[in-house]
């Protein structure tokens, strides 16, 4: 029996095509994935992301715990509500999951992790919490709605309670604010401005319908994937997993090497890998020919072979784009094997699109 979010009935009523995603019945689209994608780039769309796992971490030593648990450094979080993107590594430096952690106060942090990794994440968080007397509390009674697009904030703000509207309007990117059980953050996974809103499950359907009435269009997981790919954002399980370090997943920027005396899980393995030199890198690809890049297509680049980790058709650029893990010495061009034929692709630096605008030359 698949899990259903508190918004399941809304998706069915909105004509959503329901598919299984990590054990959840989720809408892949509500008719046209491309129209939903374009609408987020030009106006405002909403995503049900209630399948994602919200975890509250509490206890006097929570900061110390997170300093050890995460490859990025929570000491960067100095103001209440500030968010940090990080990988959580195993001892080998492989990625257990990527996540966002919000600093609420010294004894309270909130984390949002992926749905597909929920069980192992919770087990790992619990296991590591013992030495720090940190309490790990999953919050399955909360729903989450992402509202994204250039008009997302303007359409959402009037629907928020008076008690939080001003504070929500004043949020800088990558900050969040509480309003009772509601938590409104200026974050997202599309490369557009907007909010991610955590709210009680029983209030989710009503808020969804108010957003719809305000002209925010339901948007499925299909568009979510093409939007995040254009935005140059990794997807756990496709672009990295426990066998891949952040060094080979274009996530070097999320590793806080300094201060050198901060010990974190996976640090020794990462230092060793960095000293020895990694063999692969994750890059962006733009297909020069017509066609579509797909996950797992073989790539010939530099002195060897690589593989596409996320490939699709970019509705904004009208070209096939991808992330690919390729040999470190791959230059500006490579070839992709599509059904036995080699096609030329250009190596580019993501993001492909930000705030509705192409970031690479076609």
């Amino acid at each position: 029996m698949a899990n259903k979010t508190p918004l399941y009935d809304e998706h069915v009523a909105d004509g959503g095509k329901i598919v299984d995603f990590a054990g959840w019945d989720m809408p892949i689209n509500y008719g046209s994935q491309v129209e939903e994608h374009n609408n987020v780039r030009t106006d405002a769309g909403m995503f049900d992301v209630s399948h994602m796992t919200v975890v509250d971490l509490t206890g006097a030593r929570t900061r110390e715990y997170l300093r050890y648990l995460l490859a990025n450094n929570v000491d960067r979080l100095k103001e209440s509500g500030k968010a940090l993107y990080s990988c959580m590594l195993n001892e080998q430096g492989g990625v257990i999951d990527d996540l966002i952690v919000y600093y609420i106060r010294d004894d309270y942090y909130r984390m949002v992790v992926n749905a597909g990794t929920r069980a192992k994440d919770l087990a790992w968080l619990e296991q590591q919490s013992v030495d720090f007397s940190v309490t790990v509390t999953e919050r399955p009674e909360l729903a989450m709605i992402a509202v994204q697009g250039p008009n997302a904030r303007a359409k959402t703000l009037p629907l928020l309670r008076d008690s939080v509207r001003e504070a929500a309007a004043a949020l800088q990117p990558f900050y969040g604010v509480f309003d009772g059980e509601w938590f409104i953050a200026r974050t997202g996974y599309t490369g557009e401005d907007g909010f991610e809103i955590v709210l009680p499950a029983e209030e989710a359907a009503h808020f969804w319908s108010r957003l719809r009435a305000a002209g925010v269009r339901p948007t499925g997981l299909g568009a979510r994937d093409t939007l995040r790919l254009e935005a140059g954002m990794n997807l756990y399980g496709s672009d990295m997993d426990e066998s891949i370090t952040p060094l080979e997943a274009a996530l070097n920027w999320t590793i806080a090497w300094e201060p050198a005396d901060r010990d974190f899980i996976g640090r020794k393995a990462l230092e060793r890998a960095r000293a020895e030199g990694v063999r692969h890198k994750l890059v962006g690809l733009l297909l020069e020919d017509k066609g579509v890049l797909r996950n797992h297509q073989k790539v010939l680049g530099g002195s060897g072979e690589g593989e596409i980790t996320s490939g699709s058709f970019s509705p904004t650029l009208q070209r096939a784009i991808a992330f690919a893990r390729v040999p470190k010495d791959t230059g500006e061009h490579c070839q992709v094997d599509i059904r036995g034929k080699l096609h030329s692709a250009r190596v580019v630096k993501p993001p492909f699109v930000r705030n509705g605008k192409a970031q690479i030359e076609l």
Partner: protein
Amino acid sequence: MSNIPVELKYAKSHEWARHNDDGSITVGISDNAQDQLGDMVYVELPEIGQAVTAEEGCAVVESVKAASDVYAPVSGEVVEVNEVLGDTPELVNQDAYGAGWLFRVQPSDAAELDALMSGDTYAEFLEDEAH
């Protein structure tokens, strides 16, 4: 409810076939198939003159979501392809039985057409598939 013209024949792999007056057979994918695949972004067509075999893949339609093989409903030789789809693959979504046709085959054995489903049978087939 998907659109299923009764004058056409249908394959289990969701292609339609139209028997033209000159004996050739025009092939496309059904309205149901285009709806399942979603927004079409690329179509790979066979070569003119290429020999195709019934129930074997000879074209590919790609939506944002996935790539899907198109199987020849009958054996024969490809005599024409819908080149317009190179720039406008969305015609497959907009007009699956008309402007979104894929290719035309001169069949080597027109009797193979009889093995395909009628519109009514295809409608039942879709019903069964949905359950």
